C-alpha cells in the first residue's frame, strides 16, 4: 500500500495519476470497492478522510475496519487530506474526527511501503 497525504487542493490525485502512470485505475471517492469489482485494476481510494468521517458518524470503528481492508487490498493507493494542522475545534465531534484521522494515518503510515506528502502538487517522500 502507498499512502499520499497533504492539505486540501494540493493536487494529490493528479500527482498519483501522473507519477504512477496508472492504466485504468479504479479511483473511489471516500469508499472501498464492492468485493470482486476490481478485476485486477489498480485501486485508488481518494478522500480517505471522508471514509473515516462517515464510518465515525455511522458508529463504525474505522481503526479496526482498516486492518481487514488493507489485508484485502494490499496494493492500493490511499490519498488522504491532512486535517489536524489547525486550531483544536471547540466542538467535541469535530475534535474527535481530526484526532482519529491523525491516529489512523499513523497506522497507515506504519503499514505503507511508501508515504508521500504533496504540497503545491509536488510530492515529498517521507517514508
Amino acid at each position: 500500500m502507498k499512502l499520499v497525504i497533504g492539505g486540501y487542493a494540493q493536487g494529490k490525485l493528479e500527482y498519483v495519476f501522473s507519477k504512477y502512470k496508472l492504466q485504468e485505475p479504479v479511483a473511489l471517492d471516500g469508499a472501498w470497492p464492492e468485493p470482486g469489482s476490481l478485476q485486477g485494476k489498480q485501486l485508488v481510494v481518494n478522500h480517505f478522510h471522508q471514509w473515516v468521517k462517515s464510518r465515525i458518524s455511522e458508529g463504525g470503528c474505522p481503526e479496526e475496519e482498516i486492518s481487514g481492508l488493507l489485508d484485502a487490498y494490499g496494493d492500493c493507493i490511499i490519498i488522504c487530506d491532512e486535517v489536524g494542522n489547525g486550531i483544536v475545534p471547540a466542538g467535541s465531534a469535530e475534535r474527535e474526527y481530526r484526532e482519529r484521522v491523525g491516529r489512523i494515518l499513523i497506522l497507515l503510515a506504519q503499514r505503507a511501503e511508501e508515504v508521500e506528502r504533496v504540497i503545491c502538487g509536488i510530492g515529498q517522500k517521507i517514508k
Partner: protein
Amino acid sequence: MMALVIGGSGSGKSSYAEELAVSLSSPAAKKYYLATMQVFGREGEQRVERHRALRRGKGFLTIEQPTEIQKAVGCMEEGERVALLECISNLTANEMFQQPEAKPGAQAAEQVIQGVGLLGKETAHLVVVSNNVFEDGICYDPATMEYIRAMGRINRALAQAADYVVEVVAGIPVVLKQGLNWKGQA
C-alpha cells in the same frame, strides 16, 4: 541541547517527543514532564490518561505548570535534568486567556519564549512540544487570530534557538533543522 517537536492533532508528536527525551537522557539524569494542560471534564481526563499511559514506566516526574513555565525549575533537583515540555499551545492559551493574569498575545509570546529560554539554561536537554495550528484556513474571531499569531511568533523563536527541529507527520519525523551540535537521534 534543545529540541522542538511540532505536529498537528493526532500526528504522533507526543509519543515521538517522549522517545526523544528518553533517548537524550543518561542513566543518571532526572526526567521531568512539564504538564501545561488544565483539565476540564471527562475528555480532558481521558487525554491526560492517554499521555500518562504513554509515559508509564519511562521514569518521568510530572510537574504541573500551566503558566510561568520557568517556575518548574523550582521543583527540580540538582544534577543532570532532562525536561519534556508539553505543550506550547496550552501554555500560550493559558498565558493569554487565563484570568486574572490574561495577557495580550505579544506579551504572552514574550513570556513563553523567555520562560522556555530559562528552562533551557537550567536543563541538560529540553524537548519542547508545539502544535501546528496554522493550516486550517479558517478566519477565527480576533482573539483566536491573535493567539495563532502568538503561536507563530513563539514557534519561530524556539526553532531559532533549538538545536533540532522536527515536524511529526503521520507518526513520521520530518527533520526541519539539525544544528551542528546536535547529538541526539536524527
